[in-house]
């Protein structure tokens, strides 16, 4: 899931200051789990902070899915037309999808931080870089790109001290973790493979995946 944090109240108010009539959109998916953009957070902004400026609000289950948000926005079509700006409590994907559909001024209430797992509510950990070449099968299911501050494909570096990373205090060296895991799985020979560097020409931004209809 996309892990988000809320922008500061001052930062959001500063973004909103030129606009008098607002609509608020929250996210019932990732942002709700992160407790940054779900119904509680939207309600707080609507009732306590922005008051009379808000014409309408809604929570969309997936503001990043154009089919879903387009359907949801029909419920507040009139208010949307009247609004000067839309405050979106979703990750950057959600904000940009709303922009694409409405063409309105859309302002982010959140900062997208990383793709992470939720250990429990309030504890989120980065686990994926969307590198496009998942090598978890070679590393006992542990991502070196995400969990090594240097993103080393063939670690460790000489900064590993007693199994700890010298870049981030308290962080276990992921390559030590991978080694221990492969050893436990009886797969240490996988370390013999020296991975090639990334081919960046394969990842020109912005990327896209277009599936042919009917293809698997």
């Amino acid at each position: 899931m996309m892990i988000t944090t809320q922008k500061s109240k001052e930062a959001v108010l500063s973004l909103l200051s030129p606009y008098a009539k607002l609509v608020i959109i929250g996210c019932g998916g990732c942002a709700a789990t992160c407790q940054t953009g779900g119904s509680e957070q939207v309600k707080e902004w609507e009732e306590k902070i922005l008051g009379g400026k808000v014409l309408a609000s809604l929570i969309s289950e997936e503001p990043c899915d154009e089919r879903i948000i387009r359907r949801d926005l029909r419920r507040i079509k009139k208010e949307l037309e009247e609004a000067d700006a839309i405050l979106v409590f979703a990750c950057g994907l959600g904000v940009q999808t709303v922009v694409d559909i409405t063409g309105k001024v859309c302002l982010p209430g959140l900062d997208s931080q990383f793709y992470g797992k939720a250990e429990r509510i309030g504890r989120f950990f980065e686990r994926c870089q969307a590198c496009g070449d998942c090598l978890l099968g070679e590393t006992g299911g542990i991502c070196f790109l995400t969990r090594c501050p240097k993103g080393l494909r063939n670690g460790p570096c000489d900064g590993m001290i007693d199994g700890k990373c010298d870049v981030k205090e308290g962080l276990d060296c992921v390559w030590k973790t991978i080694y221990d895991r492969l050893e436990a799985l009886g797969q240490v020979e996988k370390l013999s493979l020296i991975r090639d560097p990334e081919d960046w020409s394969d990842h020109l931004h912005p990327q896209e995946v277009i599936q042919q209809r009917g293809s698997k």
Partner: protein
Amino acid sequence: MQQLIAQLDCPITGDVETFLAAAKRLKSAGAFHLHDPGGGLSPLALGSLLQEELGKEIYLHLHPADRNRAALFSELITANAVGLEKIVLGAGQHPAKTLLKEAKPVFDLDLLQLLRMALYTKSGFDPAGRSMKGEVFLQIGVLAKVDSPLELFRLRQMVDMGADYVFLKWPSKLLILAQLPKEIGKPTYLSLALEEARGFREDDWGELKASAVAGINLRIPGGKEDEGEEVLRWYFHYLSSES
């Protein structure tokens, strides 16, 4: 006789004169190892100057922390072109731990990938696989430490890949001076911080002298060149003595 190498950080200022004057005071150093700590003067440029002024061997430290593969390849072929043949490849310090901590970490290559590229260059090929004009005289070494089986495994991989020599950081728990350098089978230099060397007892120096290491690489912080010279001079005389 073991080679005595003084490792110096290239200054993060434009003051070449002070750097050269400090290097000149390291009379007991048989060679210099130049390392850019991040944002420093170019080791290539300083190495050329030092070689010209002092006629001593230069080891150039190359790391991928702030250079992508294009820039690293450029450094290799430029070093070759200006006659700086000895390269030491390191893993590189993350910018968050350097003076320019806000800088973007590059690490386009890791140490093993950098070694592979460097050895390929040494064989006369560019990264696109094309044969290069002119001879390549580079000798490629790696900096490593061996505190764990994993690090020892990686060191062996690098030696098998074809590294010409190895700089081993002290302390390294699995480094047995009498044994590991012979096992590695390539010239092995012990890399010591100045403070570590000053903490060595006579037994430690004796063990070092008796070992199979090809030399020591003494990491000398800026401003401590006189202390570094003291250590190197002492060890030079110790090596030369009968005891």
